[in-house]
C-alpha cells in the first residue's frame, strides 16, 4: 500500500489537469439541420433575440405599435357594442404599411448585410449547406418574422370579435382572408427587401434603400392614381397603375380575390380578370426575388 499511494495521487492529479483534446464522435446532423438552425437563428434575430439589448428595442417597439391600434379597435367595438369591427381584417396591413415598411427595412439588412459586410458568408459555404439552403433559410426567416408582425394584430382583432360575440362565420371568413393576404404581403415585402439589402452590404444604405423603394413607389403610384381619378373618366388606367408598388399590388390581389374593399381612389379595385394579372405579378416578384438572391450568393461564395 505504501508504494501504491503516491501513484494513486499522481493518477488523481493527471486526471485533474488533463485538459487534452477530446475528439467528437457524436452525431452530425447534416444539411437539413443546419438549414433549420440558420432559419431559427435568423428568425430570432429578426426580433433581436440572441442579440444585444439595443437591437431588441426597434423590432419589439414596432411589434407593439402594430398591435396597439388593434387592441383599441377591439376595446371600442366591445364598449360600443358595434355590429362589426371598425376595420376589415384585410385592410389593417394597408393602414399600418408605414410600420411594416419600417420593420422590414430595419430587419432585412440586419439579416443579410452583416454576413456580406463582414464576409461571414464563406464560412457558411465551407460547411454542408449550399447557396439554396442559405437563401431559403434567410428568406423564410424574414417572411416568417413579417408574418408574425402582420398576423398578430389580426389575431387580436379576431379574438376581440369573438369575445364581443360578433357573427362567427363572417368573422372567421374575414380573418382567414386577412391571413392569406398578410402571408402574401410578408413574402413579397421580405423578398424585395432582401434583394435590396443583399445588393447593399452597408447596413445604413440598405435601410434607406428599402424604405425608399417601398414608400416612393407607393407615393408615386397613389399620386398618379389620384390624378387619374380626378381627370380620367375610365378607371382602367388607374387600376393598372396599381401594379407598380408592392402595397397597391397586395391591395389589388385582396380586392379581387379576398373580399377586401379597395383603397384605390374612388374604390376602383381590379376586377377578377385584372386581379389574375395582379396575382401573377406578385408571384412573379416573389419568384424573381428568390432567383436574384440565388444569383447574388452564387457569386458571393469564397
Amino acid at each position: 500500500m505504501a508504494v501504491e499511494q503516491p501513484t494513486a495521487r499522481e493518477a488523481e492529479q493527471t486526471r485533474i489537469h488533463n485538459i487534452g483534446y477530446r475528439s467528437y464522435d457524436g452525431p452530425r446532423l447534416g444539411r437539413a439541420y443546419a438549414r433549420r438552425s440558420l432559419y431559427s437563428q435568423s428568425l430570432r434575430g429578426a426580433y433581436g433575440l440572441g442579440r444585444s439589448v439595443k437591437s431588441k428595442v426597434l423590432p419589439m417597439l414596432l411589434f407593439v405599435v402594430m398591435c396597439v391600434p388593434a387592441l383599441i379597435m377591439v376595446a371600442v367595438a366591445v364598449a360600443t357594442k358595434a355590429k362589426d369591427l371598425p376595420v376589415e381584417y384585410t385592410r389593417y396591413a394597408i393602414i399600418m404599411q408605414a410600420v411594416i415598411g419600417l420593420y422590414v427595412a430595419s430587419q432585412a439588412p440586419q439579416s443579410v448585410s452583416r454576413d456580406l459586410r463582414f464576409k461571414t458568408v464563406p464560412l457558411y459555404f465551407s460547411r454542408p449547406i449550399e447557396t439554396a439552403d442559405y437563401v431559403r433559410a434567410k428568406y423564410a426567416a424574414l417572411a416568417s418574422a413579417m408574418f408574425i408582425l402582420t398576423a398578430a394584430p389580426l389575431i387580436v382583432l379576431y379574438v376581440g370579435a369573438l369575445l364581443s360575440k360578433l357573427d362567427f362565420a363572417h368573422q372567421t371568413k374575414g380573418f382567414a382572408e386577412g391571413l392569406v393576404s398578410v402571408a402574401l404581403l410578408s413574402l413579397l415585402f421580405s423578398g424585395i427587401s432582401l434583394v435590396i439589402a443583399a445588393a447593399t452590404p452597408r447596413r445604413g444604405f440598405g435601410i434607406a434603400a428599402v424604405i425608399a423603394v417601398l414608400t416612393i413607389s407607393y407615393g408615386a403610384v397613389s399620386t398618379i392614381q389620384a390624378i387619374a381619378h380626378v381627370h380620367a373618366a375610365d378607371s382602367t388606367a388607374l387600376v393598372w397603375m396599381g401594379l407598380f408598388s408592392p402595397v397597391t399590388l397586395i391591395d389589388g390581389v385582396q380586392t379581387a380575390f379576398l373580399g377586401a374593399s379597395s383603397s384605390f381612389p374612388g374604390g376602383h379595385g381590379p376586377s377578377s380578370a385584372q386581379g389574375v394579372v395582379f396575382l401573377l405579378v406578385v408571384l412573379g416578384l416573389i419568384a424573381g426575388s428568390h432567383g436574384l438572391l440565388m444569383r447574388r450568393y452564387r457569386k458571393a461564395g469564397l
Partner: protein
Amino acid sequence: MTPTGPYDWSLTRIPLCGLTTAVACLTTVDDVTVIATESLSKRYPRVTALDRLSVDVEPGVTGLVGANGAGKSTLIKILLGLSPATEGRAEVLGLDVATKGGAIRERVGYMPEHDCLPPDVSATEFVVHMARMSGLPPAAARERTADTLRHVGLYEERYRPIGGYSTGMKQRVKLAQALVHDPQLVFLDEPTNGLDPVGRDEMLGLIRRIHTDFGISVLVTSHLLGELERTCDHVVVIDGGKLLRSSSTLDFTQTTTTLAIEVTDTDEHPDGTSAVRDALHARGLTAQDGSGLPGAGRILLVTAEGEQTYDLVRDVVADLGLGLVRMEQRRHHIAEVFKESDAQRKEAVGHGG
C-alpha cells in the same frame, strides 16, 4: 504482479489503452492520403489558375507555398467542392470533390485569409452558431465551443463582443470556428497574416499542435517559407498553377549540408581565408566565398560529403597554424527552391529567345 486493488487495475490498463490508440492511429490516419489531385486544371476565360496539378498530400501538416495568385485559393475552393474543376479530378479524405462536396465539407474545416467575424457578437455565440452550421446538435455545439476556444487560447474574453478583440484574438476565433466540429482535415489560409512576431510564433505552435495533439491533418498556405519550415512535415510549392515541387521538409532542408568556415589570420598567412581555400583546393575540395552572407570575404562555404570533410577542414586549418573561429552547418532554406526555379526559368527563357 496480480491486480489487488483499483489502483493496480488502472496501472495495468493505462498502457494497454495507449497501445490500442497508437495502433488505431497507425491504421486509420497514417495509411490514407488526405488529398489527392490528378492533373487538376482550372481555367477562367482569361486566366489559367491551375494547370494539370497532380499532388498527393499525406496526413500531417502540409504547407502550400506560392506567390500571390499562384492558385492556392483556387485549389482550396475546388477541394471544398465549391468550384468545379475544368479538367482532372481530386479527392479529399477519399471523397470525390465533384460529387461528394457536402460530405467533404462536413469533415473538413476552413479558415479564410480575410476577416470573417461579425463584431457585435461574442466569440462563444459565434462559434456555437458555426458549430450548428456544421451539423452539431445544440448541446454538443456549446460543449465543443467551450473546449475549442480554450484550446486555441481564448478564456474570459470569449464572452465579450468580437469587435473589441486584437488581431491575434480574432485569428484564434477564426481558427476555433474551423476546428469546432472536430474535422479530420483543416485548410488554413495564411493564418499568420497580420500578426506580430510573438503572435506569429504562438499561431505556428498552435498549428503544430492541431496535428500532434488533436490528430487533425492540416493544409496551411503561406508565402513566408521560413514559417512553413518550422511547422510543416511536407511542403508543396506551386507557381502559376503548376506544381513546382512536393517533398518532405527534411528533403528540402537537409539533402546536403553546407559548412561555413571562418579562420583567423597570422603573420605567416596574412590572408588566412585564401590560404585555407588554396589548401582545400589542393586536397580536392572546392570552397566558395560566402558572398551575400554577413562577413562576406571572410567566410568559406564547403559542401560536406560526410564526417571526413570535417576532419579534413580541421587538419588543413591546423597544418596552416591558423585559428578556427567557427565551423558551422548552414541549413538550406526552402527559399532556395524559388531561386533554383527562377534560374531554370531564366534559362528556359534564354533558350526560347
